[in-house]
């Protein structure tokens, strides 16, 4: 692991450059230990696939001393420690109305649309972190047969909730806007609620599974979500 100063207010901790669940566990358990250690200070601790960024509101004096402090909080057990997380079940409508690129994906992969949907729903995805856009979940675990390069020309106006495949990743666009992923469906769930204390239901380390809903069910859920009464299915899992 490497510890690097990152500007006058931040320190970056880096693991070997790879994406896997053991690294994620290590990252998240170290993050938790740091959050506890610095609970009383104004510190922002953010993680990604294989890194943690610790930022302060003011300049860090003696940044290398601070790095030594932080190093001491690490335990070799973190990667193997147990973790508790939520498994969220997210409705997705794969109807042609939303699935702009499902036909193309089916052709390229020589695979029935129903089989693509089955595979997309079968996998349990890991939430590595939230980034890129408010409420955008970086999910790992997409079936190899569903990997598909991003579109050469991004679309300018995707619908919020659009479910797409970009390279080895799948994800949901939280807001209307441009995007280059292959769109295979749409989720009626609001991924980012700016007016709530906890604007995203999921957090790094959680798991996500998609399930298929019809166009009618999509509309119903969307309407219910707008009233604030929709509740996502989830269960707590002790690993």
């Amino acid at each position: 692991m490497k510890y690097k100063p990152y500007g006058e207010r931040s320190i970056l901790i880096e693991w070997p450059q790879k994406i896997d669940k053991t690294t994620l566990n290590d990252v998240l358990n170290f993050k938790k230990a740091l959050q506890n250690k610095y609970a009383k200070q104004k510190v922002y601790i953010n993680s990604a696939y294989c890194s943690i960024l610790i930022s302060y509101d003011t300049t860090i004096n003696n940044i290398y001393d601070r790095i030594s402090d932080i190093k001491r909080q690490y335990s070799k057990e973190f990667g193997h420690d147990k973790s508790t997380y939520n498994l969220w079940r997210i409705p997705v409508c794969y109807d042609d109305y939303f699935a702009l690129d499902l036909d193309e994906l089916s052709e390229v992969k020589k695979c029935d649309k129903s089989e693509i949907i089955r595979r997309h729903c079968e996998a349990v995805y890991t939430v590595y972190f939230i980034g890129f856009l408010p409420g955008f979940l970086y999910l790992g675990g997409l079936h190899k047969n569903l990997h598909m390069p991003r579109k050469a020309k991004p679309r300018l106006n995707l619908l919020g909730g659009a479910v797409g495949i970009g390279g080895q990743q799948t994800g949901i666009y939280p807001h209307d806007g441009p995007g280059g992923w292959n769109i295979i469906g749409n989720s009626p769930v609001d991924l980012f609620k700016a007016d709530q204390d906890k604007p995203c239901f999921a957090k790094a380390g959680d798991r996500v599974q998609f399930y298929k809903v019809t166009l009618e069910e999509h509309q119903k859920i969307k309407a219910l979500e707008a009233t604030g009464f929709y509740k996502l299915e989830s269960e707590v899992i002790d690993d």
Partner: protein
Amino acid sequence: MIKVLKTGLYSSIQDLGRPEFQIYGVPVSGVMDAYSAKMANILLGNNATDAVLEMTMTGAVLQFKANTLLSISGANLNPKLNDSAIRMHTVISANTDDILTFGQTTKGLRSYLAVAGGFQTKVIMGSRSMCRSVTAQTTLKLNDELKIVEYNPYETGKNASVKFNNDHFESSRIDVFEGPEFDALNHDQKEKLLNSEFSISKENNRMAYQLEQVLENKLEPIITSSVLPGTVQLTPSGKLIILMRDAQTTGGYPRILQLKETALNVLSQKYTGDNLKFNLIPYQ
């Protein structure tokens, strides 16, 4: 209350942003030039966290619907109160129905208007900063009514003014630290990066400033990791992108430099065609 009669080119309410919400992918946001915004707040005895109005290049026209004290710092957009020119970096009292006009910039890019007690617009996730995908509004709209606190100016704090450091607009020096991937650069790249003059391309906004010149590059992208306002990214095609306050929270381009906080403020006052030179300072 303050009514918006003209919005100006790009005007938004900003405070010090939402750093604690980066874990949800929320941009830090906040005032682009924290030095000038702080100046405007200090003059009024406000808190550093109070919200100000940030105006860009061409200012707004505002009508007061309450008595208040105001101060203006940052770029000089030729402010006038009821058609009379008013001074920058000075406490000024405004009364109900007074009209505050801003024109075009003569120096700098971003101007800051503070009012006594700060703007009282809606707080979303601990901040009043307007930001795309987070707040309903990204910029001011015509006829917006901005809430302020009623203030009775029995004491106008006359002559209260501060010395504004003009180097803030004139210096082309941008202080930087090594970024996490600085060491991946080869000798020639480092040499060129730290000894050439760069200029700001027309792609510059609250999210990022792209530079005109390229730095020949063979570095591979990194696995997506955290970025910060002030991070200088190097793209595979050699473009240099300096992330600003509304930047994404994560990115996959090598992070070769990190601007000092004060340099981020200095850069915020520059625009298309302005020159800059990176000045590397060591970590302590």
